[in-house]
């Protein structure tokens, strides 16, 4: 009997050890696994490596910024390591300026493709992005059909935290609109994929097989977000 359901966020993140690499999806305040992040804050693992588009911390809501503030990260891999303006600096920016946290800056498409490569068993790939820039310095270059590319390697992870709208007991997932973003590719790339789900968990077969966004074989743990959990809302303008 396939059963991936965990009874609480705390239980689902309990075994994460210091030094783990964790992927965090989310883009523009959608598709962020806020409940699992809150549980990880309580759980307290340290020296983590995080892979995430940004570093959060721009408002009061739970996101990767709270884990940065709690000094749980040794390093973040991101597409943004500076704030748009010094006036909008976040806790990450402060710690990074002070060299209290490490960071690897990656252009977003290369980040997405490196995550995808891990989930696809690809050893490395050539992308044209970043050629001629600081980010390509020291990387292997190659001309292919008259165009220059740099060699990039996959991002593997111990865990991926996922936020989905809907799941069944096999772990098949559906996302809503822009909530999808990094979720499907991170679910494929991590050794252990942990999902927080908005709706009640369905019986296997209740999701149309043609419309599964993430196949259950990529999913290891599923937790229903409790009523008093963290729900998304539109920020005040």
């Amino acid at each position: 009997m396939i059963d991936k359901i965990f009874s609480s966020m705390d239980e689902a993140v309990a075994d994460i050890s210091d030094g783990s690499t964790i992927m965090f999806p989310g883009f523009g305040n959608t598709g962020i696994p806020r409940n699992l992040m809150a549980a990880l804050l309580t759980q307290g693992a340290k020296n983590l490596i995080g892979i995430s588009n940004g570093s959060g911390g721009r408002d009061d809501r739970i996101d990767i910024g709270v884990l940065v503030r709690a000094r749980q990260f040794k390093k973040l891999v991101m597409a943004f390591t500076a704030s748009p303006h010094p006036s909008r600096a976040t806790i990450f920016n402060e710690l990074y300026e002070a060299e209290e946290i490490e960071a690897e800056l990656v252009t977003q498409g290369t980040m997405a493709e490196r995550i995808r490569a891990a989930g696809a068993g690809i050893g490395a790939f050539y992308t044209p992005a970043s050629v001629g820039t600081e980010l390509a310095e020291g990387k292997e270059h190659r001309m292919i059909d008259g165009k220059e590319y740099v060699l990039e390697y996959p991002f593997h992870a111990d865990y991926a935290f996922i936020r989905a709208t809907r799941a069944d007991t096999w772990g098949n997932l559906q996302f809503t609109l822009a909530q999808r973003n990094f979720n499907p590719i991170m679910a494929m790339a991590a050794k252990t994929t942990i999902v927080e789900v908005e709706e009640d968990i369905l019986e296997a077969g209740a999701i149309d097989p043609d419309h599964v966004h993430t196949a259950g074989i990529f999913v290891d743990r599923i937790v229903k977000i409790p009523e008093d959990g963290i729900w998304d809302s539109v920020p005040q303008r």
Partner: protein
Amino acid sequence: MTEKTPLNRRQMAARVAQEFREGWLVNLGIGIPTLCSNFAKEVIFHSENGVIGYGPQVAEGEENINMVNAGGQHVSLLPGGSIVHHADAFAIIRAGYLDVSVLGSYEVAENGDFANWKTAGRKGGGIGGAMDLAVGAKQVFIIMEHTTRDGKPRLLKEVALPATARGVVKLLMTNLGLFDVTPGGFALREIAPGYSPEDVQAVTEAELLISPDLIQISGTG
């Protein structure tokens, strides 16, 4: 004689939007480029988060929490729109499906290099998807103020800041004019009301080519 009137942000965006053709797939960067969506008809907007075919920003109270564009703005999805995941969103970019990527920048060089991700003297930078967009799109258009806040030129012989991509800028819109980036350098094609080519050259480091058909930009938008 017309008073010197630099273009405002809306006017720059409106003029660039006139360059779009029906059916184009367009990606708009954060800032002034985003405003192009207010003027463009019959194009499809692509966003780095996998949203294809988004529409205008929606009114307060009407937002769908799960529907945002690359700037994090709550927008609508037009009929015919669709969603892909982040890796496919960038597959679209790298594979050359974008007809144009419109980006903001700090500096543009006469050879088409531009620099928009890292400022001087600060640790780290904010790339987002700019390096992918810059090399993947069929054309790169830049919209930016002609000079820095303290009046220094941004149209340079060579970029001084770390480059985002090399030799890719095709069209440049500033508050003083519209420039084609040609093998010979910046070619001033249209100019802001009241300005002479000499006025523009005076605040430009690179040497400008002046189009024989130079016209004044109409202040739409």
